[in-house]
């Protein structure tokens, strides 16, 4: 007895049966205690009738496939999902699509009290498979019609693919009459992480349900050395790494967006938008020698620390005016210094009429405490401009105004996580379904001229 292997649970303790291969004489151990229909000699690859006391030879297959090695050796015992199992059979199966042959491996697990279950492996993707306890309801066309599906135990499965699968290598024991070269029609329906499969052979349909497993879970269950082969690509029932209910996520985002609108409307209502200064001045462009800067009367900013909006308007036409502002606290000497340009150009050319710029400008000074303030204003304009030498401009100052940009930025920041996750999920699902009978429409369609050439 292998002392390193975990014992199978529950009395009485069944005993494995030892026989010899009638073809090569090699010792064969039957582990499924009379439940096997066929057993394969690991030495000469004869498929033997396990029900026959003399192990009659049913089939011998090519030994060219001897290099096929199960990742979990036959006889390995482990505890999978709380139940002890022993690996008693292994088969390699294949299907050919568009002249490309795909291979996958199936391991037969046995527990004398629980019966059989299966592990399948394709490119590092594993599935824990068992026979369905009740017949699934198939919707739509049975085979590969788009939109067809199946319902099992109240769960909806989408048709993924239908293919002809054949066995090309077997090892160990099987509770059915296994044959190399035997072909069955296999249809898979998916609802990640589960896959519902029907296998039709000689007009007999067997339904099985599989659940995706990660290689490391198998390695831990069977205490296998090294590490499992890395999973390649996306498998049909592989759970999305995003693992998030996108509908809920977008609903949460919608809730935030509504709250943001409420916040914006609320602040718009409670903002004082208090007029502080509204004056119109004239800039004499012809006066190039005198000091053009001046100060306004002192005004009071009241209430909590809040912003101040300065709006500059000037009826310039194909002209500009630039105003240097300094909002100065009369008591502390603290100042907010900035310059604003108002420019507006328009005309007519071969493309039609055009215009550029605006006759007004707005700026919001952030977080100005209450206090007594005045503005120092220093306007500039082009002194060489012909015509009336005066450029009028109006300065309008308001205290505590709503800033729409804050909500715009908040909206974008709220949008980023669901957008990134949705794109990741879309990309993953697209890759998944590219391998199905219903591949997604290519994003870039080849042009007909390329097809013709």
């Amino acid at each position, binding site marked *: 007895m292998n002392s390193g292997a975990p014992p199978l649970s529950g009395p009485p303790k069944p005993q494995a049966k030892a026989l010899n291969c009638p073809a090569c004489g090699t010792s064969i151990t039957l582990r499924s205690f009379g439940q096997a229909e066929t057993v394969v000699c690991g030495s000469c690859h004869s498929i033997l009738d396990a029900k026959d006391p003399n192990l009659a030879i049913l089939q011998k297959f090519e030994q060219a496939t001897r290099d096929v090695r199960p990742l979990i050796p036959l006889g390995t015992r482990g505890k999978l999902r709380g139940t002890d199992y022993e690996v008693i059979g292994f088969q390699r199966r294949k299907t050919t699509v568009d002249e490309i042959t795909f291979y996958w491996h199936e391991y037969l697990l046995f527990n004398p009290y629980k019966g059989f279950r299966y592990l399948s492996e394709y490119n590092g993707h594993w599935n824990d498979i068992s026979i369905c306890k009740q017949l699934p309801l198939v919707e739509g066309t049975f085979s590969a019609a788009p939109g067809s599906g199946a319902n099992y135990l109240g769960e909806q499965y989408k048709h993924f693919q239908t293919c002809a699968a054949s066995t090309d290598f077997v090892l160990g024991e099987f509770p059915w009459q296994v044959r190399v070269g035997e072909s069955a029609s296999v249809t898979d329906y998916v609802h990640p992480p589960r896959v519902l499969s029907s296998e039709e052979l000689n007009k007999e349909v067997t339904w099985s349900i599989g659940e995706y497993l990660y290689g490391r879970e198998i390695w831990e269950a069977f205490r296998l050395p090294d590490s499992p082969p890395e999973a390649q690509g996306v498998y049909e029932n592989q759970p999305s790494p995003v693992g*998030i*209910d996108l509908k809920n*996520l977008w609903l*949460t985002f919608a809730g*935030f967006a509504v*709250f*943001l609108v409420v*916040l914006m409307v609320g*602040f718009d209502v409670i903002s004082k938008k208090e007029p502080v200064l509204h004056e119109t001045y004239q800039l004499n462009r012809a006066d190039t020698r005198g*000091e053009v*800067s*001046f*100060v306004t009367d002192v005004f009071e900013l009241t209430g*909590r*620390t*809040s*912003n*101040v909006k300065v709006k500059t308007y000037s009826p310039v036409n194909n002209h*500009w005016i*630039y105003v*240097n502002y*300094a909002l*100065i606290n*009369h008591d502390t*000497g*603290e*100042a*907010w*210094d*900035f*310059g604003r*340009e108002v*420019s507006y*150009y328009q*005309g007519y050319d071969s493309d039609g009429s*055009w215009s*550029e710029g605006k006759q007004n400008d707005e*700026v*919001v*000074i*952030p*977080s*100005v405490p209450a206090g007594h303030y*005045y503005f*120092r204003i*220093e306007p*500039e304009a*082009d002194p060489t401009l012909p015509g009336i030498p005066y450029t009028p401009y109006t300065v309008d100052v308001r205290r*505590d105004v*709503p*800033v729409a*940009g*804050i*909500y715009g*930025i*908040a909206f974008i*920041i*709220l949008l980023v*996580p669901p957008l990134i*996750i949705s794109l990741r999920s879309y990309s993953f699902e697209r890759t998944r379904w590219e391998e199905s009978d219903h591949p997604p429409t290519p994003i870039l369609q080849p042009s007909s001229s390329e097809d013709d050439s």
Partner: protein
Amino acid sequence: MFRKLYLAYGLFVLGTAGFAQFRGWSLDRINQLKNVPKSVRDNPGSYRSVYSGYHHYTGGK
């Protein structure tokens, strides 16, 4: 788990947006100075804005 994180993240963003509006934050860049002399009020020319001499666009199309 992620939904809870996103909930916390969203509430933080909304809270920050509300706080920003309440405290009068702005998206405009304004140069802030300390200790501007009181003489500016009597002699505005004694103060020169850091934005004086700004190169203006004089073209149009």
